[in-house]
């Protein structure tokens, strides 16, 4: 009798449950999506950029003969993750010429996670690459900032250099920045049909200094998603912020060490990383910029950088050791 009553209450029990339609949509989306390889880190990005640039030089031999007198191309803006920044990209126009190369600082953008400079080089150049050839960025306080990534298009001479974020109090005061370059690498280093062939030495020494004043786009904190439990590891969100162009996410990890997250599972090739993290825009496009792993006394720390293309629900996908989970970030 009493068992029956309890059974009936359980049968009729009303409670919140996941929305089957939404879960189905996510599952089918994830199932159809190929397992993504790890996000290219800076080294891989630089290498890939070099390959692309070399390929462009090879397949478009006359492309670097004339610097296209056009605005920064939309695809490069997308590559820089600045499509969401709108008119917050500061037009600069500073020019420096040396050793037959002309560098123009076309635009700049800064927020609390990165500083992006948009340049045009004539003749075109290749990414400079670390460590000794890094361009130096400094602010009015004399502080210098490291390069995070570089991207060039040797067809047009357009260059995107991304530096780490400007330090306090630049966000309040704005920043007077100076970019100093002492070495450039010609884009036509090896192709014999280039209009400006260089037989053996692609490096060009000189002195280029470009100055600009930029505002710093403040980011706003977003609601922290629920922790993600994947296998033995728990990923706790400690900060999620969004500016007009960037989504910054910080996480701490329990149940896995820094080395655990770096492991790769043998697959007969380079190995599959056990940990991946990706961000997808509301339209499904990838919005991942980069991420870095750090560590403190309490365990691993993850700093993730994504591109904000506009407002909407962004999907953060985390996988670890065969388990994966999605977290939605509602970005205003």
């Amino acid at each position, binding site marked *: *009798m*009493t*068992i029956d*009553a*309890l*059974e009936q*209450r*359980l*049968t009729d*029990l*009303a*409670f*919140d*449950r*996941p*929305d*089957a*339609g939404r*879960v*189905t949509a*996510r*599952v*089918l989306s*994830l*199932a*159809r999506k190929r397992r993504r390889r790890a996000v290219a880190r800076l080294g891989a990005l630089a290498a890939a950029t070099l390959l692309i640039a070399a390929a462009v030089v090879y397949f478009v031999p006359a492309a670097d003969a004339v610097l296209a007198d056009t605005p920064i191309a939309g695809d490069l803006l997308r590559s820089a993750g600045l499509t969401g920044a709108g008119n917050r990209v500061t037009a600069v126009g500073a020019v420096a010429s040396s050793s037959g190369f002309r560098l123009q600082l076309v635009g700049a953008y800064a927020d609390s996670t990165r500083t992006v400079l948009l340049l045009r080089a004539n003749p075109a150049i290749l990414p400079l690459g670390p460590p000794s050839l890094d361009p130096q960025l400094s602010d009015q306080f004399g502080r210098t900032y490291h390069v995070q990534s570089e991207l060039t298009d040797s067809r047009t001479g357009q260059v995107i250099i991304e530096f780490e974020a400007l330090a306090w109090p630049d966000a309040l005061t704005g920043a007077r920045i100076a970019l100093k370059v002492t070495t450039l690498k010609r884009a036509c280093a090896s192709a014999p049909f280039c209009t400006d062939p260089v037989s053996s030495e692609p490096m060009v020494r000189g002195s280029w200094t470009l100055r600009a004043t930029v505002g710093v786009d403040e980011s706003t904190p977003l609601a922290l*998603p*629920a922790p*993600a*439990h994947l*296998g*033995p590891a*728990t990923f706790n969100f400690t900060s999620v912020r969004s500016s007009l162009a960037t989504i910054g996410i910080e996480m701490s990890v329990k149940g896995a060490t820094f080395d655990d997250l770096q492991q790769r599972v043998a697959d007969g090739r380079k190995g599959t990383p056990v940990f991946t993290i990706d961000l997808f825009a509301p339209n499904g496009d990838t919005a991942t910029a980069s991420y870095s792993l750090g560590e403190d006394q309490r365990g691993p720390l993850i700093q993730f950088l994504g591109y904000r293309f506009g407002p909407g629900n962004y999907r953060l996908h985390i996988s670890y050791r065969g*388990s*994966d*989970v*999605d977290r939605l970030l509602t970005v205003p």
Partner: protein
Amino acid sequence: MEAALTLSDAATAALTPDELCRRYAPSVCRFAGMIAGSSSDADDLAQDALLRAVRAIHSYDPSKGSPEAWLWRIVVNAGRDSARRRERTRWIVERLAFTAPRESESVEAAVLARLRDADLHAQLRLLPHRDKTLLALRYGVGLDTAEVGAAVGLSTDSTGKAIRRALARLRARLEVTRP
């Protein structure tokens, strides 16, 4: 990923991942909502369980049983994995809150009459994982005892007894927490 799955009850019907989700997502979501500790955990569990099933759809062998039995074994395993992660930190609370089953029909009847669904659900969630899995499959999803047994790897008789014990433990919790 589009591998076909032949249904035991409809030999001509091939089950694609879409069809699998269409047929079973509501039940899996109900199961997940019933046993998970929070709505976000329920979301994770439902997604994880269905994704495992979709990704393993090619491994289903009709000669080894119905697709339902195959699916619920996957779902139960996903639930068990999820619970293991959480129970490491919760086991002390579980132990402290545990009370031996008692039989007290009159008290239970009074409690049940006033019990809100939310309170009953909360107490259900506090049961040991195995107990709430059994109850969620039996009463939440609506499987019969044999189907529940197939999903959790027990004989029908043992499953029936295990469900009774789980009900008794839930009853005991309701007594302890009665208003």
